């Protein structure tokens, strides 16, 4: 039956259809929200379906893939419409569907051009899903660029602060990176074609290309640069605090929780497997920027008065662990990095949502506006504390597990890098408890009328908190899904 229903195509086009429908209904806010919610829920349900199929092997698929779809598209250039799902893609698609659902729910109050807003959210979701499923490099690039358009509009139109400046900065950075990646893709395509006379963008084919060492180094560097910008890695991050801060909450959520993951995914799925030698040569560089970033960003986060800016720096600091695990390129470390991607998306996303809720109430993101919320809005404060503790790596909550796996996995390859990176977690705690202290504890700094969470808000946060705890207590099933694909991808 599964071969009759093109699940993978549906995963991409269901949100896109939803986007069109939402846009068509833009006259009525209620209809827009309802339809957007219905489509995100349907998408999540559809993502969960393949969980039952993981044992199977799809016909014609590369090793490890249990769903596969392949069709000729632009035959003249050897561009094919190839989608595949293995354990890694599965987890990433579920994550995408989940985060989009949270984004839709947290954007419930958006009044200004709500139809376009939700349409863009859904379109963005479709593009991200496509990226996680593509097995054709051209298709991957297409989705990589397609993500950018709704994201730019979300920041530019609904942003606050200096949205145009932030949008342009974000665009310029990512566009430069993308351009380099495209050139590298084309070069690879031509080289492979010249070697085999089979001009193709198919990733499983391209992996077999023989690449001279010095050319490989340049091509890998192009991919790395492109991914490092979106990650972002030190020192290519300066677009990020501005974009995160000025975007509306749902936009920040998509940007911080999902778009940064596409870069990490690209490294794991494409850049490292394509260029094993070059990646090994540049590994020390990645270690250095990852370790430097973890400490540097955590340190800077401490100095921020704007909560969203603090979280933006916190977000990149945590992404440093993902980079660390990928750079170590051992099965354990990469599985930790993948799990950290999920955990980072959930925890950091939850923090952006929860700060957004506070901002909605008091129209301020400045730390000095708050204080003593525990006495006034205890439910809010409870969730605020839980997510912050998860971010600080308290065991029993999600981030701890992935950071531990990354530490253990990386330590075997690069003990010094792992040890220094973990010294950075002291700095993480320093800014986290500062944030908690200034908001939750102490005395109220300015008198504010604060209402505790509404049912919708409490529901959103409760779901996020449950995921945070579940992934901290029983991450086994997720790790199990990574096992088979990593055995193929990461050859020790």
């Amino acid at each position, binding site marked *: 039956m599964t071969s009759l229903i093109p699940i993978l195509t549906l995963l991409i086009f269901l949100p896109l259809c939803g986007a069109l429908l939402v846009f068509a209904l833009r006259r009525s806010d209620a209809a827009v929200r309802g339809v957007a919610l219905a489509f995100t829920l349907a998408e999540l349900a559809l993502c969960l379906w393949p969980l039952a199929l993981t044992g199977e092997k799809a016909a014609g698929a590369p090793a490890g893939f249990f769903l596969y779809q392949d069709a000729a598209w632009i035959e003249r250039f050897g561009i094919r419409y190839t989608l595949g799902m293995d354990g890694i893609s599965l987890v990433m698609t579920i994550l995408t569907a989940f985060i989009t659902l949270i984004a839709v729910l947290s954007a419930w109050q958006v009044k200004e051009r709500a139809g376009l807003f939700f349409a863009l959210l859904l379109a963005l979701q479709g593009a991200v899903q496509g990226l996680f499923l593509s097995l054709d490099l051209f298709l991957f690039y297409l989705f990589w660029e397609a993500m950018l358009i709704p994201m730019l*509009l979300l920041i530019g139109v609904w942003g606050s602060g200096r949205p145009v400046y932030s949008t342009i900065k974000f665009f310029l950075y990512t566009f430069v990176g993308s351009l380099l990646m*495209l050139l590298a893709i*084309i070069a690879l395509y031509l080289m492979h074609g010249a070697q085999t006379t089979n001009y193709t963008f198919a990733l499983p084919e391209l992996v077999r290309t023989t690449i001279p060492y010095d050319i490989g180094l340049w091509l890998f560097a192009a991919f790395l640069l492109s991914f490092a910008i979106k990650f972002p890695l030190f020192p290519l991050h300066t677009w990020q605090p501005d974009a995160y801060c000025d975007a509306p909450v749902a936009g920040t959520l998509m940007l911080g929780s999902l778009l940064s993951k596409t870069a990490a995914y690209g490294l794991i799925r494409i850049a490292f497997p394509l260029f094993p030698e070059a990646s090994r040569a540049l590994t020390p560089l990645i270690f250095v920027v990852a370790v430097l970033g973890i400490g540097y960003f955590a340190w800077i986060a401490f100095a921020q008065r704007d909560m969203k800016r603090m979280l933006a720096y916190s977000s990149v600091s945590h992404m440093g662990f993902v980079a660390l695990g990928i750079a170590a390129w051992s099965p354990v470390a990469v599985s930790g990095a993948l799990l950290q991607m999920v955990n980072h998306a959930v925890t950091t996303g939850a923090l952006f949502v929860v700060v957004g809720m506070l901002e909605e109430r008091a129209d301020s993101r400045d730390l000095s506006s708050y204080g003593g919320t*525990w006495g006034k809005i205890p439910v809010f404060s*409870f969730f605020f504390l839980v997510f912050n503790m998860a971010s600080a790596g308290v065991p029993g909550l999600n981030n701890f597990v992935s950071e531990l796996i990354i530490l253990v996995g990386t*330590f075997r390859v690069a003990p010094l890098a792992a040890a220094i990176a973990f010294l950075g977690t*002291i700095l993480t705690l320093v800014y986290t408890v500062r944030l908690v202290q200034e908001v939750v504890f102490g005395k109220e700094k300015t008198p504010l009328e604060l209402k505790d969470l509404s049912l919708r808000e409490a529901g959103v946060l409760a779901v996020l908190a449950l995921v945070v705890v579940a992934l901290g207590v029983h991450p086994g099933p997720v790790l199990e899904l990574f096992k088979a694909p990593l055995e193929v991808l990461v050859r020790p």
Partner: protein
Amino acid sequence: MLPIYLTFMLLLPLLGGLTCAVAGRKLPRALVEVLACATVWGSFACAVLAAAAYTGPQVITLADWFASFDLAIPISLYLDPLSLSMVVMIGFVCGLIHVYSVFYMRDDEDYARYFALLNLFVFAMLTLVLGETLPLLYLGWEGVGFCSYLLIGFWYSDPNNADAGRKAFITTRIGDVALMIALAWLFQLFGTLSITKANGMGFLMPGSVITMLGILFLIAAMGKSAQMPLMVWLPDAMAGPTPVSAMIHAATMVTAGVYLLARLLPLIGSSHAALAAISVTGGLTAFYGATCALAQRDLKRVLAYSTISQIGYMMLGVGAGAVTAATFHLLVHAFFKALLFLGAGCVIAAMHHEQDIYKMGGLRRSLPVTFWSFLTGAACLAGIPLTGGFFSKDSILLAVWLKGGVLYQALYLLGLLTALITAFYSFRLMFLVFGGGNGHVHRSSGLTVMQVVLIPLAILGLFGGLLDLPSYLGGGYLSGFFATLPVTDLPTGSHEQEIVLQVVAGIVALLGLLVAYFRYGKGRAERMREAQAQPSGLFAFLAQGWYFDKLYHLVLIRPYQACAGFLSERVDRGVIDASVDGLSAGVGGVGRLFGRWSTGKVAVYLISFAAGGALILCYLAWLAL
């Protein structure tokens, strides 16, 4: 049956804590109180049942936590004499303190948060003790730190309390990172994170590696057990409610470092350098804590510094390889220090939250039960002969003496000197708080129950020595029980040696008592007069904890804050961001183009973006053709 007992031992306080945390504010107060107490006593009952069913060291795997390739972390527990004696003590002491808390926190509206954290703490502490794999131990280790953080800052509306909580959390995190790094290293070396397996594989590794591991574990212990140089958080931790100080910052959590080192001694004990580092840390900290306690005016801070000092003794014992002696002192100390803190809680409650010992006096007659219990506790702390504290402290000193060598003999003398100071400050406290003229107290019905709780602890402290009598008195129960631990053989002394050393220790303690009597008993009025003046010189140095706080503020905290601002403004914005902006502006015409762009609308952008994409596609087409 053992797995069931252990499961419920952990599950009961966990469920109690979660229930209070999630639904506590909706439940009636009495229900929350009963629930919190019942779960802990239930957990204690399970510990007793487990002790009854105990036949020998055993690893019990309950479930899987996570696994990735060869890194597999099960939820498995290890029951051996060490963990068994710890869980029984923890269950009992925490149970009593829960009951005490019901009355102490009677007027506080935030009972749900309080009991939720207290219950979660018990769960975390038991996990720490029972965990067989290092990550599980770490779960408890960090869990107790988290509960401690929130409980120190329980009265959060005073920023000082919240600051104290934050200080404790961050300072101990330094140790935690050392533990994490040691854990990763252990896995690299042995391919396992099981404590029992690693303990059996120490001999495979060169001595230098074992020494480094030992130092990392020592740093971890320094944080949690408030040893030098990471001890600065514990005195401030007294900002929490007094039962919290009794339970977390005296009886249980702060001994976790000692427990960790004792647990891993089979692994790290083969390194003489590591052992020496542990004993020196312990010896110095014992001395440091005792000297600081001499000059404190706050009742709870005296006890806090005495805790630092007593844990120093335990570390000294572990460093001498004497796990039994260290655990013996750990258990007896838990009883008498909980007793002292709870007694202090009675005094503070009766004195309308006054904590300055120079403003107290005469409580001997007005609070007789507290007085007699507190006296027992102080006698134990001072090591007055035949009390529990006397035997336990002496077994550590004996082990240190028998270990031999210049270093350990010097440490023995330092320990003896510390014992003298300890006896002196213990009775300084007694004379100032309970001696002198009339004392007016505020009585409440809660106070009666609170005082009753002191009695069992006083009995345990007083007769705690029976747990492990010296061999000339027929030998001890604990030594026999601990004989199965895989620890290197210790030298044993002759009966004469033991007797001589104990007589010396007894004389030292009585000497301290005598001096305290002359200075604070007979000379009370004079001391009270002196206390009006501004403290200066040595006294201020001791009262300020050797100025460690000031030092850290100067060399760590201030520079850290300043650098954060500098990095954010000057480096991140000023250099990195500006250089990127400059780069784009500097590319001549492109820069001007960007300039025109940035004035326009996003739509302009997207059009040029699409144009760029089209251009690339054309190029591609041209290539393929």
